[in-house]
């Protein structure tokens, strides 16, 4: 059998990935060390300037800070909102489980842009949310604000947190919980000492699936932030496709995002893979 497969079939896919994925990443790295020419494109002189500019405070505090803060907050909020739901789902009787799961999964398979756009409608001054808030006496325009972007992000990524959490919680052997009760633990103790630790792989997986993409997000901040919420993603887009392009700088920023993301996740990369069968 081994003779037949011998791994030969890997190569077509691997080559495609090499050419259209690995090489582009390599090019980003290379270009991040070049200089900007008059049109904002590349002048083939190598320099560390771009990275030095990233160390400037305006980058740190501004886009980078926004991105990281948004990513962290989104992850945390999704976790807090999603965990109880995932738990309830996991413990539901089989019949209802199918339906409830379907309902949770459904929005995540609809177009992300469409969902962000829906909040675009809701958050605008003429939209429902402002109308609702006005009823409560709060005069606030959430559109073009940090909070608005956050709402949109949480909305977009919540299902991605719920799914891995559900997958892990669903595999939990309830006999362990019963054993803990049998030994005298209270409900809180059972949660803290049995359920929560055992759901850790799911938490890690869900957090990764939310944190990393949000770091590079540009749709939500651009559409819902109305230009007032600069993030790394928005910045990258400006540098490549905006009015005043600066490709080398853009490349440097992109590489930094990727490195940051991979770093934050590297320790847990194995956990993502293992979590699939440890559950």
């Amino acid at each position, binding site marked *: 059998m081994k003779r*037949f497969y011998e791994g030969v079939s*890997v190569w077509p896919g*691997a080559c495609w990935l090499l050419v259209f994925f690995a090489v582009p990443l390599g090019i980003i790295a290379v270009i991040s060390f070049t200089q900007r020419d008059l049109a904002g494109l590349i002048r083939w002189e190598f320099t560390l300037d771009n990275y030095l500019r990233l160390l400037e405070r305006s980058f740190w505090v501004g886009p980078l800070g926004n991105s990281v803060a948004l990513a962290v907050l989104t992850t945390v909020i999704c976790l807090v909102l*999603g965990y109880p739901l995932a738990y309830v789902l996991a413990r539901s009787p089989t019949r209802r489980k199918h339906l409830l799961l379907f309902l949770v999964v459904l929005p995540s398979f609809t177009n992300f842009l469409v969902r962000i756009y829906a909040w675009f409608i809701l958050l605008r001054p003429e939209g429902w949310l402002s109308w609702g808030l006005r009823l409560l006496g709060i005069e606030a325009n959430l559109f073009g604000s940090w909070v608005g972007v956050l709402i949109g992000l949480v909305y977009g990524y919540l299902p991605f947190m719920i799914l891995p959490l559900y997958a892990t919680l669903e595999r939990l052997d309830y006999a362990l919980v019963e054993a803990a009760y049998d030994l005298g633990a209270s*409900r809180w103790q059972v949660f803290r000492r049995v359920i929560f630790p055992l759901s850790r792989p799911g938490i890690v997986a869900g957090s990764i699936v939310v944190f990393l993409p949000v770091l590079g997000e540009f749709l939500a901040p651009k559409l819902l932030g109305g230009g007032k919420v600069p993030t790394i993603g928005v910045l990258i887009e400006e540098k490549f496709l905006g009015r005043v392009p600066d490709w080398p700088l853009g490349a440097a920023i992109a590489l930094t995002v990727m490195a940051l*993301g991979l770093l934050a996740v590297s320790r847990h990369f194995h956990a993502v893979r293992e979590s699939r069968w440890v559950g």
Partner: protein
Amino acid sequence: MKRAVEYGVTLLVALDVCLTYVFLYLPIVVLIVYSVSASRYALVWGGFSVEPYEKLLRDPEALRALGNSLIVGVVSAGLSTLLGTLMALGLERGRAWGQRAIEVLAYLPIVVPEIVMGVGLLLFFVQVWRRLGGDVGPLPTVIAGHVAFSISYVMVVVRARLRDLDKSLEEAALDLGATPAQVWRRVTIPLLMPAIVSGALLVFTLSLDDFYVTYFSTTGGSGFKTLPLYLYALAGRAGVPPQMNAVATLMLLASLTLVALALIVQRRHPSPLLPSPSEGRGAGGEGEKIGYRGDRI
């Protein structure tokens, strides 16, 4: 006192569950409602009307975007399913030279932020491709990018299913006289089919949905648009045109159909992509029926 706290927590949890479902679906409902409003602006309610849809169908740009989305989707799903399945088979069953490295390479696209991939492709096509062989046009460019990120998803899905496959089935086929090629054709591939179909549907959806990779690799300003790009362009215009709601709703309905399809496939043949509820503790549900051995006398 403890009882009160416990009840409080249970109430909070119940509240969280209900509110979350409302939260998830409210914007979608709003979208659908507004798509049938007669008004010059997408955000104002002006009475029931199908005008937005009419405007949409009369817009040639919209129809072209739809066509592009479909072509890109079908082609990239087909290619990436083929390549991804081959990769899964090779990685799981073979001992390829450089296997570790290829495994890392295959899992990377799932972890790398889409925007980085998009930028990379942009640079690649402008700096390298054009210099080597001239312009290929946006369609192959976009397809190449879509296949690149899709291969990994197919590979993950198929590989997981392959791992769960009972090896003794392939041994039994060999034992009964089948050559390795016959084993593949008569046993392995048929048993993998649900995962392969699942994977294909998944990447088709991902392709239809994709914004970043498409946007950047077509340098955002060119004439080539897929549906998400078309939607984005509309949103950018001052005075938001009502077609937007119509487009958004249609895309929603299309996704709905695809998801329903995927879940039907999954129900009949459980796939490891979507967690399927297990019947009985930790034993796994219908998926375990492969090589099922029971005592149902």
